[in-house]
């Protein structure tokens, strides 16, 4: 057996190992990129749903944007007030109280309430259906109920019940992903506290609105007269509530003849 050959092989490979180790140690020191340890802490504090509600592709880019000062610390709505406080602490800013929001559907046109115009037989998509001769509902503003928003929701907060969308307020994080999904712009992000809402966007005249749906706003202005706080106004044939002025007294709900104004529990 040739002992020299074995020893020389060990020596050469060992020597190379030591040499490469030294080069790598040097490279690690010389070319190191400083990482802001706050990015990791922000990433830890956000909701981590990768939903995209903040406007970034996911939680990692959002965390980087927060630390670079580019993104607002209140953009992560799924995380809520807890996340805002945590991010404020990490970033050394003052935490501001953000009123928690919720997505609400401004339509009550369930089966039997809103009248259909035709039977829609086609791809199950609200966008596709509303392109078909103005949509399958008699009301050109009403919920089609084919669930484009349900597909967009990342938090399982929406489902189709009796022909329209029902939103589970406990699950809704007010991320706003459902808002652009609706081809009729029926979903609105409202403050959670604003419990009195006009759940109709029908801008047709009273006769046409009544013909299309029994729970449509007919612009009778009774709510306007009943409101003592100047909080509700009929604008373009449909009542609109100013949530800042509304005191939730519920007078408008009582006088509405078509029950299109609701007071959520």
């Amino acid at each position, binding site marked *: 057996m040739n002992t020299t050959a074995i020893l020389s092989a060990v020596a050469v490979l060992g020597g190379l190992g030591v040499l490469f180790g030294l080069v790598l140690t040097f490279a690690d020191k010389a070319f190191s990129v400083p990482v802001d340890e706050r990015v990791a802490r922000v990433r830890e504090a956000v909701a981590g749903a990768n939903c995209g509600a903040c406007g970034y592709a996911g939680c990692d880019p959002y965390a980087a944007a927060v630390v670079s000062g580019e993104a607002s610390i209140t953009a992560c709505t799924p995380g809520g007030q807890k996340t805002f406080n945590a991010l404020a602490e990490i970033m050394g800013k003052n935490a501001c109280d953000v009123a928690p929001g919720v997505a609400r559907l401004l339509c009550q046109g369930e089966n039997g309430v809103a009248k259909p*115009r*035709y039977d829609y*037989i*086609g*791809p199950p*998509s609200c*966008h*596709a259906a*509303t*392109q*078909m*001769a*103005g949509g*399958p509902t008699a009301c050109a503003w009403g919920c089609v109920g084919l669930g484009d928003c349900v597909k*967009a929701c990342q938090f399982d907060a929406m489902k189709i019940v009796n022909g329209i969308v029902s939103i589970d307020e406990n699950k809704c994080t007010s991320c706003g992903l459902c808002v652009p999904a609706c081809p009729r712009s029926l979903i609105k992000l409202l403050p959670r506290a604003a419990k009195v809402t006009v759940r109709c966007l029908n801008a047709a005249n009273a006769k046409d609105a009544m013909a299309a749906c029994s729970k449509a706003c007919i612009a009778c202005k009774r709510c306007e007269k009943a409101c003592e706080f100047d909080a509700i106004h009929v604008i373009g044939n449909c009542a609109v509530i100013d949530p800042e002025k509304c005191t939730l007294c519920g007078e408008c709900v009582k006088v509405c003849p078509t029950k299109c104004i609701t007071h959520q529990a």
Partner: protein
Amino acid sequence: MSKLSFRGGIHPLKEKHEGKEATKSKPIRPYVPEEVCIPVDMHLGAPSIPCVKKGDLVKLGQVVAEPAGPRGIPVHASVSGEVTAVISKQQLYGKPSTCILIRNDKQDTWVDCHILGDVETAPADKIIGAIRDAGICGMGGACFPTHAKMVLPEGKTVDTILLNGSECETFITADHRLMLEEPQRVVNGLRAAMRAMGVQKGVIAIEENKMDAYEAIKKAAAGREGISTALLKTKYPQGGEKQLIKAVTGREVPSGGLPMDAHVVVLNVATAAAITDAVTEGKPSIARITTVTGIVNEPSNLLVRIGTSVSELITACGGTSEEPGKLFFGGSMTGLALPDDSVSVTKANNCLVVVNKKDAALQETTECIRCSRCIAACPIMLNPQRLNILCEAGNLGQAKKENVMDCILCHSCHYVCPARINFPFKEAKEKIAARRI
């Protein structure tokens, strides 16, 4: 002569002769309605502006709506009689259209027509103006104003005018009957268009399932200056502009480009016939040939006045043999479903199909099995299965990069799909166009 074609495509309803058997031997018969409801936004572009009011008496061919802008076209009364109302009524489009209702006095008194003369001798510089004044728009289905197509922007040149007589869509036989019964009108219209644009070459392209029409056109075109005929393979979507140009000239329209980028203008044969009427008789576009087929008792090719309601068409064809499940304009591949039977026939509607409840039912969709049949069928060489995944995931930016905007919405991918996937490319294109992704 060799038969021309393109790559990809499908053979819809091949075993049923593309559904055309019922009407291909039925001669065109005119139908005059009691009342018409003429929408003013039949063509692509800004709607025309109504220039008559309730109570006005109008003559046949009188302008009832003025064009809006240089690309617009006027709308003419398709019957003579009294204007009963100008209303807003839901038609096929997303928003309600302004419509002019005219009660027919059955007199058919024509308005004074300005005749340009024979297609070979009429002043060439006046022809495009006559086409505009006659309110002619693409009668193959797209309804693009024809005069706008014929006025080329600076720097573009055209050396060929293609007449599209392929009629590759299922059920439709309107163009087939027109070419068979009045080939001279079609050929004359092509000559007028060639003279107006100063183009030396005109080709009339016809699919091989219409050999009788091909022979008739060939006979009519014999001896006419610059006109030749081309026989195409029967395949869908052979009548798509880009597929037709590829098959006949071998040129390819660049992505996002128009036929004029391949130095070609494509016109439908029915449009050509309308051009002949406008030039030689000064008559505007007030009627069109519409095939009415499906479960109607007497499937027919009707010469219909523009604005006739669909319910009248069905009555004119003897009613339906069973309860209808769906009505649609156009063939079964690219047709548009109707909301009800009160919709009016416009200049674009070459066919009305009535189907029963069983055929109207939506087929159940299952998961994609990556069989790639859609890729083989796509006539523009896209990858529908990948685009479907991207569109479903909402990744429209990537879908746009992978050329979803070039999709011609022929639905060949949906037709061949064993999982019956509804490829959502129409919605994707609309969303991309609206959001400018």
